[in-house]
């Protein structure tokens, strides 16, 4: 009996000690702030190999994933024999080989090209846990290879981040390549440019409808800055607002039922809400100053816009329902072209300082203002990607004005359009 009590006492005495024996250590940041990824070339499957297909798919995918900033790419020169292994099942992949190269994720794929029929299969693997993360089989023609690569890049981002990428979307912009400022459309990597208008005039300020099927823009075609709407697939075009004076900076509401724009029909430029048929529904601002460049909050309840009502042009936010207006920016002498992020937390805008424009972003409550662009040239007209990860903007830092894209924190900037023409006013479409 005494022995039993002694054992219980001993157990109770040792239990807390054994619990405390585990020492606690804290790791407060990862050793590597990117995911090591091995991206192998597509391998031919049951068909004659086409270096163009494999090369183009790899090039597009690499560019998209590199822009995401998520990955550190393993040098292809270091790849071992599994890179030439056609097997796409996790049991067929030699994971230890990839792990030896320091990779955590692996992209492998095959293609078969029979005449005009192209089938691409691509897989994303988790090297550490030796499992398939995601994969797709794309079918189309050889001309669709870029779209397939963009779609797979979106899928990779969705698997790893939980949110689809924006690479399958398009970017609308204004270019004077033909001699006149016309509306153009291109892929997110700047490829496949396509002219949408032939107004032989000045086209400005394009913006996509929330579903991405229509584009709003202002054109001087009728010698007055009128607001137009164009259906992308059918090419149909309609003049929506053609009041005397300005009809500019039209932005469709998230519910697609209203358009916020700047009208100067009464002399002074003010922000109005109009229906998709062009009828005025509400006047948002009523002030002696110039109010312009509205941008919707994702919930459709507020509008950010530029106004010089307190002296210099600054960004203001107006509540659509109450009409209450508050000032957002306080620094700088000239703040313009605001764009509300799709997540609703930040607003990006351009500010003139030291004689040139740079991009800044700020929280909706006016805190945490950050400068995003540095260096030479003017950086203007920022717009968000549909996932809020990237920004597209125009800049003349390379000489002529061109369209650039970068991450939302200002890193990874790259030029999309060439410097032959003047390109500006980009707008990133919703996901197609």
């Amino acid at each position, binding site marked *: 009996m005494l022995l039993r009590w002694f054992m219980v006492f001993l157990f109770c005495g040792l239990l807390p000690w054994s619990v405390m024996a585990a020492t*606690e*250590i804290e790791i407060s*940041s*990862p050793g*590597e702030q990117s995911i090591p990824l091995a991206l192998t070339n597509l391998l031919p499957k049951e068909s004659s190999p086409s270096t163009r297909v494999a090369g183009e798919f790899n090039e597009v995918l690499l560019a998209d994933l590199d822009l*995401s900033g998520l990955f550190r790419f393993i040098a292809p020169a270091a790849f071992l024999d599994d890179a030439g292994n056609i097997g796409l099942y996790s049991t067929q992949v030699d994971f230890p080989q990839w792990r030896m190269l320091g990779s955590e994720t692996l992209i492998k794929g095959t293609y078969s090209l029979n005449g005009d029929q192209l089938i691409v299969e691509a897989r994303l693997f988790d090297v550490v*846990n030796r499992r398939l993360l995601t994969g797709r089989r794309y079918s189309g023609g050889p001309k669709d290879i870029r779209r397939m690569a963009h779609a797979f890049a979106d899928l990779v981002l969705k698997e790893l981040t939980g949110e689809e990428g924006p690479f399958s979307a398009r970017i609308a912009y204004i270019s004077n390549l033909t001699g006149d400022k016309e509306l153009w459309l291109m892929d997110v990597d700047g490829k496949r440019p396509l002219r949408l208008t032939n107004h032989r005039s000045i086209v400005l300020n394009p913006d996509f409808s929330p579903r991405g099927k229509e584009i709003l823009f202002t054109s001087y075609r009728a010698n007055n800055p009128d607001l137009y709407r164009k259906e992308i697939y059918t090419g149909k075009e309609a003049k929506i607002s053609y009041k005397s004076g300005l009809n500019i900076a039209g932005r469709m509401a998230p519910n697609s039922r209203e358009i916020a724009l700047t009208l100067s029909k009464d002399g002074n430029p003010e922000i109005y809400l109009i229906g998709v048929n062009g009828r005025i529904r509400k006047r948002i601002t009523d002030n002696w100053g110039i109010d312009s460049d509205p941008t919707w909050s994702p919930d459709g309840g507020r509008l950010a816009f530029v106004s010089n009502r307190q002296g210099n042009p600054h960004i203001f936010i107006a509540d659509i329902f109450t009409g209450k207006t508050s000032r957002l920016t306080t620094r700088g002498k000239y703040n313009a072209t605001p764009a509300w992020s799709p997540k609703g937390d930040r607003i990006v805008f351009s500010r003139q300082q030291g004689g040139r424009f740079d991009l800044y972003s700020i929280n909706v409550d006016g805190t945490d203002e950050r400068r995003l662009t540095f260096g030479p040239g003017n950086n203007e007209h920022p717009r968000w990607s549909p996932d809020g*990860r990237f920004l597209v903007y125009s800049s003349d830092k390379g000489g002529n004005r061109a369209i650039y894209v970068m991450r939302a924190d200002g890193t990874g900037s790259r030029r999309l359009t060439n410097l032959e023409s003047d390109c500006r006013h980009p707008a990133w479409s919703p996901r197609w």
Partner: protein
Amino acid sequence: MSIVTLHQNNAFHNDPKFGRLLLVSLLVHGLIWVAFSGSWFGTSSRPKPPVYYVDLVHKPVINPQAGRPDPRPTKKPKAAVAKRTVPAALPKVVKKPVKPAVKPLVKRTQVVKPKPVPKPVVKPDQRKQKKIQSALDEIRERQARQAERDALKDKLAKLRDSVGAAAMIPADVPVGMPDGTGDEVGINALLFVQTFIQQNWALSPYLLDQSRIANLEARATLRYSKAGKLVSYRVDQLSGNKQFDNSLKRAIIKSQQLPQVLPKDLDLVVVFNLKDMAAAR
């Protein structure tokens, strides 16, 4: 019973066939050994003996002594011949006193003062003034930027000096930790494990919602054997963010074999968070 057995054994030993039987037995055993040790059944399945790369300089210990974690051989001072000798003191040059030049005396004569000619009043050109003002503003701005840059340079130089001073610890200082209080030669085993796991933890900030980085935290219990092998692990508390949780699981799996042996079995509770990353934003 035992007597009988002994007796029987003795009888067996005395048997003349015993030697032959022993020989046969040895031969059979030998054949079996050759059959199994040879390459008849393939040798690839044989487990390889574990190989430990032990860094004796950075040996992980429990109670490290004070010292330097990364000993670097310092350059030996070169022979005196190679040294450039500098004279202790330069001879002072004694300057001769220079006599002041004698000024020639000039007789005072009446000087007719010229009448002041009224200068033409130049009206300030507003454009010019604006230009000057803008140029001045620019210069001031440039000066301010330069001052800011100089301040940053000073700060950087100070940091470099401090790092340089740390690196200049002489080579004969024992291997240990800067804050070590024990008496063992080596580095802190806990810190060693922590650094190894951290190096294996790869997580891109672009994977996460930037506004929630500071709140992400997960806890895992890890048990390492003395041989540096991860015997078991258990994730006690997840952050709720799939990307964050997956990344730390991968880090743990990648850290299943430490590159060094440990002084003893280690039970660790590892807290993963992104405080440093959030602070750097």
